[in-house]
């Protein structure tokens, strides 16, 4: 288990390599990488967060995934600060014996991260217009399917 909140970019290949290293019980590794989209004329995207709570929230989400599924390993990385279209924002990865578990747990991590981790996106367009991104109802719906 590992959670990181950082301004710097990260290397998905190195993260995937580290996740599975030395554990030959792992048969399946799933990763999700979120990128800044350039649609709507977005020039920069800034990620604000709640220092202190962010790490706790991500650790709680990760711990819940390990309670629900037989995971061999997992990782969550979320960047903060300014980014441009094409840049990586977020990365989650899960490792398990079989693929069904790895896929489900990775979706769960993203759905919960999207609705429970204190991050806020602000987009600035080429003309200087700034706009806080609205929460998507579809994200609430995606998170609700894991309720129990």
């Amino acid at each position: 288990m590992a959670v990181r909140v950082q301004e710097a970019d990260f290397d998905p290949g190195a993260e995937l390599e580290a996740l599975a290293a030395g554990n030959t019980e792992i048969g399946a590794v799933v990763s999700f990488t979120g990128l800044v989209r350039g649609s709507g004329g977005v020039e920069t995207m800034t990620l604000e967060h709640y220092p202190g709570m962010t790490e706790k929230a991500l650790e709680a989400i990760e711990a819940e995934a390990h309670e629900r599924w037989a995971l061999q390993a997992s990782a969550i990385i979320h960047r903060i600060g300014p980014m441009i279209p094409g840049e990586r924002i977020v990365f989650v990865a899960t490792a398990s014996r079989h693929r069904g578990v790895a896929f489900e747990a990775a979706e769960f991590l993203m759905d919960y991260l999207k609705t429970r981790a204190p991050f806020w996106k602000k987009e600035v367009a080429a003309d200087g217009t700034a706009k806080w991104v609205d929460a998507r109802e579809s994200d609430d719906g995606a998170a609700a399917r894991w309720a129990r």
Partner: protein
Amino acid sequence: MRVLYFAWLRERIGVGSEEVSPPDGVATVADLVAWLKTREPRYAAAFEDTAAIRVALDQEQAEFDDPLTGVREVALFPPVTGG
């Protein structure tokens, strides 16, 4: 009690955090927000639609009717949009 504001709530109120001393009778998050709204027009404007506001108490997700007893840090913010 320290109150933190994030995203557009922080921008509208004009500060990211402040120490406040609410009067007796402010027992829940809802009470606190109602009291903040009485302080200055910018608070009233920022909290106009409380359905759009989420809260964390001592860095744990919470609800508007949760009590403030023993709480040191209240964070108020719009729905999260990371990921």
